[in-house]
Each structure stands twice: as structure tokens, then as C-alpha cells.
């Protein structure tokens, strides 16, 4: 009698499943959702916000699992794909919470991110002293956010947020200037 042995088949690892099983994914998604909800539910308790965030993250995971076949690893990474879903689910949830109509401005949806607003650094002198210094230190002298935090006696996260808020101001100034010239 002959016995036929088949080599053990190893299915290719499912990246979506691996990400969904990873507890870090859940934490990162919670962070994203909590950031959004803080403003929308500022008049609610911390516990209520936490519950809402947990509900949303649960829905994200369910939706990601249901649509896992649509994930294409050649065009996206799993974390970015999951955060994209979280973004949509949170928007829907926020609209439900405030009973607001769906996203209004079509033109805003189609506004390009990369449109050339000129060189924002041209307007550096229009920023306040602290903001200008932070941008100069980080962008021109390549000083890290943690070193800037040490110099200003603030937290690293705060230094990072101040830097990005200053960049937003510069972008706005550049845009206003360009629109004025048109």
C-alpha cells in the first residue's frame, strides 16, 4: 500500500488580518478618532467620548474586515488604508451626532493639496517672534523638535504643533498674496 504525502500548504499571510490583530493598530485608530471627537463632543464627558470612539473604531475594524478583499498592497499600506476608513466612518458618525447634512462643498473636496502657493518662506518676517524662530530653527537650521522644546521649555509635542501651525499661517499668507496678485 502506498501512502501519498502532500507538502504542507502555507497560505500567504493576510496583511489586513495581521494589522487587525495587532493591538497597536487599535491604539493608533483610537488616537485618530479621539482627536476628531474632542471638538465634536467637547460638551460631553471623557467617558462618553471614549465610548463613542470605541464604537467608531469597532465599526472601522468591522468595515475593514468586510472589505479586506478590496485592499491592494501594491498601491497602499495597511495602516494608511485603515486610517482612510477611520476618517470616513468618523465623518459619518460626526454628521449623525450633530444631524448635519453630508459634506457640503464640492469645490472644497476637489481643491488640490499641492497647488503652488508660491514660497511660503517668503513671508517668514510676518510671523510672530516665537513662531518665526521655531520655523527657522527647524526648517533652516535642521534643529530637531526635541531640541527646540528644550530651548523653549515646552514639550516636544507642543513644539511640533507650534511649528506646523506656523507653517499653516505661512501657507495662508502666501495664498492671500497670490490671490491678490491675480
Amino acid at each position, binding site marked *: 500500500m502506498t501512502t501519498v504525502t502532500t507538502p504542507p500548504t502555507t497560505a500567504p499571510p493576510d496583511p489586513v488580518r495581521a494589522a487587525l490583530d495587532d493591538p497597536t493598530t487599535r491604539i493608533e485608530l483610537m488616537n485618530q478618532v479621539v482627536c476628531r471627537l474632542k471638538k465634536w463632543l467637547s460638551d460631553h464627558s471623557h467617558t462618553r467620548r471614549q465610548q463613542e470612539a470605541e464604537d467608531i473604531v469597532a465599526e472601522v475594524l468591522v468595515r475593514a474586515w468586510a472589505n479586506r478583499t478590496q485592499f491592494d498592497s501594491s498601491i497602499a*499600506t495597511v495602516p494608511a488604508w485603515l486610517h482612510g476608513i477611520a476618517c470616513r466612518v*468618523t465623518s459619518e458618525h460626526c454628521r449623525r451626532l450633530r444631524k448635519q447634512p453630508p459634506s457640503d462643498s464640492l469645490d472644497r473636496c476637489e481643491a488640490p493639496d499641492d497647488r503652488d502657493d508660491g514660497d511660503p518662506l517668503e513671508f517668514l518676517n510676518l510671523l510672530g517672534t516665537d513662531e518665526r524662530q521655531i520655523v527657522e530653527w527647524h526648517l533652516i537650521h535642521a534643529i530637531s523638535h526635541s531640541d527646540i522644546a528644550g530651548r523653549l521649555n515646552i514639550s516636544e509635542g507642543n513644539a511640533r504643533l507650534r*511649528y*506646523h501651525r506656523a507653517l499653516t499661517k505661512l501657507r495662508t499668507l502666501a495664498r492671500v498674496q497670490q490671490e491678490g496678485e491675480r
Partner: protein
Amino acid sequence: MTPHERLRIDLLVARYLEAIETDDFAVQERLWHRAESEPELVERFRQIHADLIAEHDEAESTRTTETIADVVRSHLPSAEIVQEKTGPVTVADVVEELFRDKSTRLPMDDLATNQKLRSSREQLPDDLGLTALMTWARSKLGDASPEYWRAFRKVALKLQLQRDSEIQFQMAARKAPKPEEPK
């Protein structure tokens, strides 16, 4: 990464932060779509989430502390609110204490200097000997009378000792590791 490339990424992160702060869902969604092909953006956006949460928690904690302090001030006017400070002693800490200390009478010029230094975040030097302190202070903080620096030094030493003892107390009060069970 070139400086131009760094600026491009930083501007996208700034755009994302603005979109979160203005509740612009469409831009957020589009930026996440974009992050699908730029893994660096995923990390940077996540960092922004963590920073915003930390900032919000800090603001909430400050609000709570202020509310409690207000209640104490209005209902227990004779109580003193002691704010525990951490980290190295700064010039501002010393100046604030000098300002509060009624036993030290400073001449008008020194009071003006004191007022000017209230926002200085400069850390005190390691050597708090009078001569060393005065040399350091004149180069870093400007001129004041020798009496002022004497009073400054006295308060600086007091605060430095207080801060050191707080650190030692915290070290002593830390949780001891559990002794290992005998096998």
C-alpha cells in the same frame, strides 16, 4: 531627504493638522488617501494625533487645577496654594519668590530689573557662590546692584535646596520592586 522634500512633507502635515482643527473631513480623507502611497505621512499624521491628545489633556488638566485653585481662594482665603514645580530652578522662579518675599526690600532700580527678569527661563548655574553667580548673572541677565544679587543668591539657594529635597523625596517614595519569590 532634501530640505525641499522635507518642506513638502511638513506642509502636508500642517494641512492635515489644519483640517483636523477646522473639521474639514474632505481634506482629511484626501490626505489619508495620499498617505497610502507615502508611508512617511502615516507616521507623521499619527504623531499629530498623539500631540493633539497630549495638548488637549494638558489644557484640561490646567483648567481643572485652576478651577480647584479658584474654589480654594474663594472659600479658604487664608490658605496658601503650593504649586509643586519640577525640573531645574530657573531665573523666573527665583525672581517670583523674591517678588513675594516681603522681608527683602529692593531699591527701585532693582525692582525694575526684577520685573524684567520675571519671564526669563534661564536655568541657574551649578556654581551658586556669590562671585561666580554675579559674573554669570551680569553676562546673561544684565546689571543690578550687589545687594540685589545677594538677595537673589539667598533665594536661589533656598529654592535649589527645596527642589533637591523634593526630588529625593520622590526617589524615596517610589514603588519598590517586588522581591522575587524563592524558588
